């Protein structure tokens, strides 16, 4: 979230698109209710299903799954053509006036630089026109045809309300009604918050869905504002923390990019990742990249990391290819992997195309499952009848199960969607032999290390030189780990302006990442978490809910990264002269001497407005990007592409049907279906009663939602002779599942390009290891194809067929 949970209450409009917070985030949803009641906010829901969130919405429209950019593009066109943008914000705080390099083009659904053979772009033309000093050229009148605003207008002029309706199935009047509500927040004192979750990420255009909303929020002046922002609602309780700490293959902790093969030296690696300001005098926070990286290396390799040896940079693995989960699945399927360690991971259930995953796991020599429960993955070799019809005698994979603790049996910090770290304590002792994940990892490490010590082997250094300073090497305490990610001084850290002033003495915990150094005098395991566990103690354990401003900035509750800031980009909550945009949302503003307000300012604290430093200090040009430069795989402006499996024959906007740079493996391509064979749109989702594949093992929750069902609209049900409660079979090109049919008014037949399109809703959660009724793994159905930026699979839009197999009550 750019903002945070409590801040939702400050919104005048809550737009939920790509998520279902009432279902998946019921506790956080209280703030939406709060906004409605205390702030008279309007709740707008755009979703393929009339879901629990829609049940309390003011305005709801169904939309064909996978056509969100057609909708948001239409909104951008509406805002620009009706002149409903926050003018001063757009001019001063976005790259709307920036001139784009000659050579940038968009034709037939493709941006300049496309290589059809490699399915990638040469992104060199997606750039600003630079002057001789290397600064971007701007036209503050925004009339130049090559300025971002004019390109934006041109790009989205194709997204007329008629076109939007034709593609998405949203009624034109409903679309315009929603546009009007969204546009109302272009007034400087009105804000809209946007909430999304996996309903937007799990598409081949997932990242671009989110970008399109970021652009809308910039045009409306809603970024950095209380009650504004683009807010990702994270799915698992600590998935934000995992991401912050480098769970994703391409990121080290703190969102530092993983070194690639071409980054042979530390200098080369840093060079590619340390930007220079693109505007004169602009503050450019990523300019500090070397401090973060060197501190990370010091935390990991300790005394083995010296200035002379590039801080042991050589010990870091260099990625030779992508290692996202989908590509790991492909490597397994090709028999190129010997073993897999699944720690809190159930890939048989959570990867798309279960049949492929099952075959892939069968090719492993060994599989380790570290989990509190017996996951489907850990028993993938067992035959469970129609639910897992495998032949155990043909599977030679050796499976080890290491019982781990659940969150309630463990101590540590959770990072919530609002980037707030909150410490939690164990509620009970773990059962049996269950051990904490950190102890399991430490024990594995010690044994592997002992083997390397004894037997040597190829490249033992990364293991042997790992810094392992914990008091109990076999079971590091969570406090020690928290102190490590916060960071500490290895030598006295002094103020660069006044060397007599010691900011942190050697051995002390650091208070802020501003104290990190690139000379090896500091160590920090995750620079954005610096400040979480300081000399004052564990800041994440603070529980003071006081909120002096009433705007939800509870600075003494837990610790929010970065530097306890609750709303990112909050400098933008004041106009260029430093005054609040309106009386209603006074947040961070210039008081004559410094930036101040209820939150930690996201700016140089004493940089006066007249110095002209722009507010988005994480960008080298200092402004929000309507034009994304080369950061997105598909192009600088989001463009509508059909899902890889789409019920329509062509893209209504141009000749490029689906995402031209989405990665798809050869074997997976052959497992794609056509709309002739599979005429309906399948979409998967979660239910409030269950948490992923865990709680089907909890009797009470199994009672509340006992069995796999699929939701089918009344129109489709009538067409296929399906009655409520019947048993149906849902098939995709990849496989089939059976489930109870729930015939509902809440899924409507949509009119798309003159054709009727029906949707089949398929919840997750069920499986063959279960206290609830045994069921198929839903991910038998979706295809193995991901978003081109994050490789998140397209679980939300694929093709299926459905038919009745028997009446109610039969299994």
């Amino acid at each position, binding site marked *: 979230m750019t903002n945070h949970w409590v801040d939702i209450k400050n919104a005048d409009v809550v737009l939920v698109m790509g998520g279902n917070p*009432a*279902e998946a985030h*019921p*506790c956080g*949803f*209280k703030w939406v*209710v*709060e906004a*409605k*009641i205390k702030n*008279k906010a309007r709740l707008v829901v755009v979703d393929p299903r*009339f879901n*629990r*969130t*829609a*049940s*309390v919405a*003011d305005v*709801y429209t169904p939309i064909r799954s996978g056509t969100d950019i057609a909708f948001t593009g239409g909104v951008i066109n509406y805002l620009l053509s009706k002149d409903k943008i926050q003018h001063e914000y757009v001019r001063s705080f976005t790259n709307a006036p920036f001139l784009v390099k000659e050579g940038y083009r968009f034709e037939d659904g493709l941006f300049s630089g496309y290589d059809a053979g490699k399915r990638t772009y040469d992104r060199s033309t997606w750039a600003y026109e630079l002057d001789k000093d290397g600064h971007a050229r701007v036209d503050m009148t925004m009339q130049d045809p090559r300025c971002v605003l004019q390109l934006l207008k041109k790009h989205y002029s194709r997204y007329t309300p008629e076109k939007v309706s034709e593609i998405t199935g949203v009624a034109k009047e409903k679309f315009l009604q929603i546009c009007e509500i969204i546009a109302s927040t272009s007034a400087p004192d009105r804000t809209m918050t946007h909430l999304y979750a996996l309903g937007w990420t799990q598409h081949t255009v997932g990242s671009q869905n989110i970008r399109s909303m970021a652009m809308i929020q910039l045009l409306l002046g809603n970024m950095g504002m209380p009650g504004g922002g683009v807010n990702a609602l994270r799915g698992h309780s600590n998935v934000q923390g995992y991401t912050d700490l480098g769970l994703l293959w391409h990121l080290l902790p703190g969102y530092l990019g993983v070194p690639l093969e071409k980054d042979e030296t530390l200098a080369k690696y840093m060079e590619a990742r340390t930007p220079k300001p693109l505007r004169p005098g602009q503050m450019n926070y990523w300019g500090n990249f070397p401090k973060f990286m060197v501190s990370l290396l010091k935390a990991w390799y300790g005394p083995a990391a010296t200035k002379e040896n590039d801080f042991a940079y050589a010990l870091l693995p260099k990625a030779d290819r992508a290692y996202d989960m989908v590509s790991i699945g492909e490597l397994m399927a090709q028999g190129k992997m010997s073993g897999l360690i699944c720690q809190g991971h159930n890939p048989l259930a959570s990867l798309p195309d279960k049949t492929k995953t099952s075959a892939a796991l069968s090719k492993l020599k060994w599989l380790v499952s570290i989990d509190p429960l017996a996951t489907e993955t850990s028993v993938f070799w067992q035959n469970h009848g129609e639910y897992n019809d495998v032949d155990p005698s043909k599977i030679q994979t050796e499976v080890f199960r290491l019982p781990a603790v659940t969150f309630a049996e463990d101590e540590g910090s959770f990072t919530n969607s609002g980037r707030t770290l909150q410490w939690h304590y164990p509620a009970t002792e773990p059962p049996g032999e269950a051990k904490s994940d950190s102890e399991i990892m430490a024990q594995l490490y010690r044994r592997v290390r002992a083997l390397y010590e004894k037997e040597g082997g190829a490249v033992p250094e990364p293991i042997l030189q790992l810094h392992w300073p914990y008091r109990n090497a076999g079971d590091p305490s969570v406090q020690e780990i928290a102190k490590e990610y916060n960071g500490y001084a290895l030598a006295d850290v002094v103020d660069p302006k006044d060397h007599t002033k010691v900011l942190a003495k050697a051995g002390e915990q650091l208070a802020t990442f501003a104290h990190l150094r690139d000379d090896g005098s500091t160590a920090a395991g995750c620079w954005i978490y610096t400040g979480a566990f300081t000399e004052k103690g564990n800041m994440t354990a603070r529980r003071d809910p006081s909120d002096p401003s009433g705007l939800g900035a509870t600075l003494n509750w837990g610790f929010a990264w970065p530097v306890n800031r609750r709303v990112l980009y909050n400098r933008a909550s004041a106009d260029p002269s430093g005054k609040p945009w309106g009386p209603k949302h006074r947040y961070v503003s210039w008081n004559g001497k410094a930036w101040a307000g209820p939150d930690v300012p996201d700016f140089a604290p004493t940089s006066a407005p007249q110095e002209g430093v722009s507010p988005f200090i994480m960008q080298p040009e200092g402004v929000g990007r309507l034009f994304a430069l080369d950061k997105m795989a598909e192009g600088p402006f989001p463009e509508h592409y059909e899902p890889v499996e789409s019920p329509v024959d062509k893209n209504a906007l141009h000749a490029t049907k689906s995402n031209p740079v989405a990665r798809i493996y050869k074997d997976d391509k052959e497992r794609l279906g056509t709309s002739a064979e599979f005429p309906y749109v399948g979409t998967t989702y979660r239910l*409030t*009663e269950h948490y992923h594949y865990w709680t089907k093992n909890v*009797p*009470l*929750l*199994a*009672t*509340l*939602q*006992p*069995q*796999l*069902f699929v939701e089918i609209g009344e129109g489709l049900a009538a067409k296929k002779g399906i009655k*409520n*409660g*019947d048993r149906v079979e849902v098939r995709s090109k990849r496989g089939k599942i059976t489930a*109870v*049919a*729930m*015939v*509902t*008014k*809440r899924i409507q037949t949509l009119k798309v390009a003159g054709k009727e399109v029906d949707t089949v809703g398929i919840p997750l959660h069920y499986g063959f290891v279960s*206290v*609830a*009724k045994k069921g198929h793994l839903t991910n038998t159905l979706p295809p193995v194809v991901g978003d081109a930026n994050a490789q998140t699979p397209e679980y939300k839009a694929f093709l299926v067929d459905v038919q009745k197999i028997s009446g*109610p*009550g039969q299994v």
Partner: protein
Amino acid sequence: MALQSLDIKNRSASTSPGPSARSTLELAKLIDVSRCIGCKACQAACMEWNDLRDHVGVNEGFYTNPADLSDQSWTLMRFYEENIEGSLQWLILKDGCLHCSDPGCLKACPSPGAIVQYSNGIVDFHQESCIGCGYCISGCPFNIPRLRKEDSKVYKCTLCSDRVSVGLEPACIKTCPTGALHFGSKESMLIEANGRLDDLRERGFKSAAVYDPQGVGGTHVVYVLPHGDRPESYGLPKNPSVSPLVALWRSGFARTVGVITMFGVLVAGILHYMRHGPLEVPGEKKE
């Protein structure tokens, strides 16, 4: 018996009035349907607090699970789909005991003290006195109590009388994530409920209303219904009252008249005998 006997205002099948030396604040639970998202946290909390575990059933094509209230499910989210004035509504109602001021269950119960009404408004079942006749089930205008086959006792929401007696709110209230559930004095709940109506009307729910049916003397669970003119759409009776059939069946007056008549027959026999003596075969001597 979570509250004190001092607080018992009415007692089933009782021939004497309850203690009246003191009275407690009249309490109520407010269910604001317009804020409810049907997450079933209240259902889970109810089962957790009361140590209830319903069986894992099957899905019969509905979000409502378990399919009905039971001795193990004292509260249940019910889901209804309806097109109202051209707009699709997914109506979600937290079903359970409404704790009537004029409780049909208590009226119907033949076992002394098996059902009590506290002065705070809670209607509570004392299972140790329950004889399993199920008259309360027939007496209830809302079809709430459920008989457990295993022990032939009837169960329903207690409004967490055990928690309330020590100053805590009911478990469902504590757990509700969206603030759809409130608990407090009935007066303040009605103020809160009526305060919600302006907002709802402004949002287009012209007939939003508070459901506090006077046919049963008002209830201690009140609802804010966005479509207040059609409680049936939420599965609630429009004008509930204790059925006249129940009133007749369990009427104290009729029953007392019946008992007097029965004894009248006995008395009439004695009087007849005194007046006319026995009917004997003429001339036959007594043995």
